[in-house]
């Protein structure tokens, strides 16, 4: 079976006044219909990897790759129109904070309908029907009420569920979730994650889950890529995380305070310059 997504030697460069910053430096992986986690600290290039796949890299940045293909479509040589058609329809992305990623002057229902209208020939009544169904699928109880609400009128957890609804309504094959629960309360995080988990499993999507929380990612994904300074330093099956070899992965695992583990002071990462080579 051919993979859903092939990434080979992906590089993202940002020209700045003081020189070129390489945010992503030669990332390669393939993704089937599975859950893949990308983990790293801020600045490790994990978000930029997701954005490059989605085609949301800022225009002044330079994206190159030996191969960046989604279902046989070469994303880098695809026309802007082609990419727009893919984006939202077949590749979707959930962003971190619903407060900033939802349109504040448009009701939640209209934003979901907008996705549908952009990608399908669909009547008004049917679009509304589909949006309501989708809101129900993300376990929003009173879907028809929430449909007419504006983003500022709902809680963070509700907003993120609306965001998931909006992204999944067109039935994408690949979902990129960039820190989808970092802005949410701990108690709400689990709810949102379980909704996401169920929908991804039911619909057989490929998922790229980007986060700085290694434990969370490993509990959610099948396979984890650990990034440091724009490169993948380790690829590991989530179930074998305990056997991580790279000191950076081990450091990320150890630095979290765990309930019941009495470790004072906490172990900190001793960053070695050779990791970035």
């Amino acid at each position: 079976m051919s993979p859903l997504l092939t990434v080979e030697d992906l590089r993202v460069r940002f020209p700045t006044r003081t020189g070129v910053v390489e945010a992503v430096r030669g990332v390669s992986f393939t993704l089937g219909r599975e859950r893949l986690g990308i983990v790293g600290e801020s600045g490790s290039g994990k978000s930029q990897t997701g954005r490059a796949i989605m085609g949301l890299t800022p225009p002044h940045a330079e994206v190159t790759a030996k191969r960046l293909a989604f279902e046989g479509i070469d994303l880098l040589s695809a026309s802007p129109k082609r990419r727009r058609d893919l984006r939202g329809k077949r590749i979707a992305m959930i962003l971190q904070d619903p407060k900033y990623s939802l349109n504040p002057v448009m009701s939640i229902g209209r934003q979901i309908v907008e996705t549908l209208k952009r990608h399908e020939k669909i009547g008004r009544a049917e679009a509304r029907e589909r949006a309501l169904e989708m809101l129900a699928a993300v376990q929003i109880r009173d879907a028809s009420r929430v449909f007419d609400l504006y983003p500022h009128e709902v809680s963070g957890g509700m907003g993120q569920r609306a965001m998931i609804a909006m992204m999944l309504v067109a039935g994408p094959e690949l979902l990129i979730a960039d820190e989808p629960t970092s802005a949410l309360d701990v108690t709400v995080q689990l709810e949102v994650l379980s909704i996401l988990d169920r929908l991804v499993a039911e619909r057989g999507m490929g998922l790229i889950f980007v986060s700085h929380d290694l434990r969370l990612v490993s509990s959610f994904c099948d396979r984890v890529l650990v990034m440091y300074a724009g490169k993948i330093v380790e690829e590991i099956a989530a179930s074998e995380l305990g056997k991580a070899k790279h000191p950076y992965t081990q450091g990320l695992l150890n630095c979290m305070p765990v309930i019941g583990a009495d470790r004072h002071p906490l172990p900190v990462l001793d960053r070695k310059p050779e990791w970035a080579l």
Partner: protein
Amino acid sequence: MTEAVSVENLSVVFDEFKALDAVSVDVGKGKSFGLVGESGSGKSTLLRAVAGLTGASKGAIRVSGREVRGTRRDKAFYRAVQMVFQDPYGSLHPRQTVDRQLMEPLAIHGIGDSERRILKALDEVGLGSSFRFRYPHQLSGGQRQRIAIARALILEPSILLLDEPTSALDASVQAEVLNLLEEVRRDRGLTFIMVSHDLGVVTHMCERLAVMQNGRVVERLTSADLVAGRIAEAYTRNLMVASKGFRREAVAQSG
């Protein structure tokens, strides 16, 4: 013994909304106390009321045995009680150098010898003097939070109020900042009141904690109790489950 901070039946009302409803909390001198709960539970409001950033409508706050009220406090209060905020991107002035931000509390309180104090404060939070003339945008998130901590410590307070001091930071940087906070508390015998939604962080840092929900304290327990699972309230148990991270089976059961 007088408690470092004693809050008695404190209520804070915003228009019709009761953000805090008759909350009482006592924190002994040199102790570290945690407040946990989800957003909107009133944990930050409690901290802000103690700091004098939010007015209370009922109840009393005593700091080192002395009653404080309102949102205008005397200089001695601000010298004894300092606060570190959640977001280091928002709590530092974007157009002032580190030097100037550290100078400000000294100038307000008329403390001399600023040269030595600034260098010492920077040194204490693990940043060298090379950071002194940088602007916040030239620092990473962890470095900014260290500056915010240095700014709070430069007045040599006895009580530090910490409002989610590490939730905006990466896990790896969080460990460094938590270690730093523990170290200064040990060296100076500080009293901490720490707000966090992360039970792991709170049990690591605090001896005792209060769990808040809808403006009320629903449970008070020691970290040891929490670790051992001696929990009375269902809400606390929920938080505990949530803090263990995502587990497919657990979710399937609860759903």
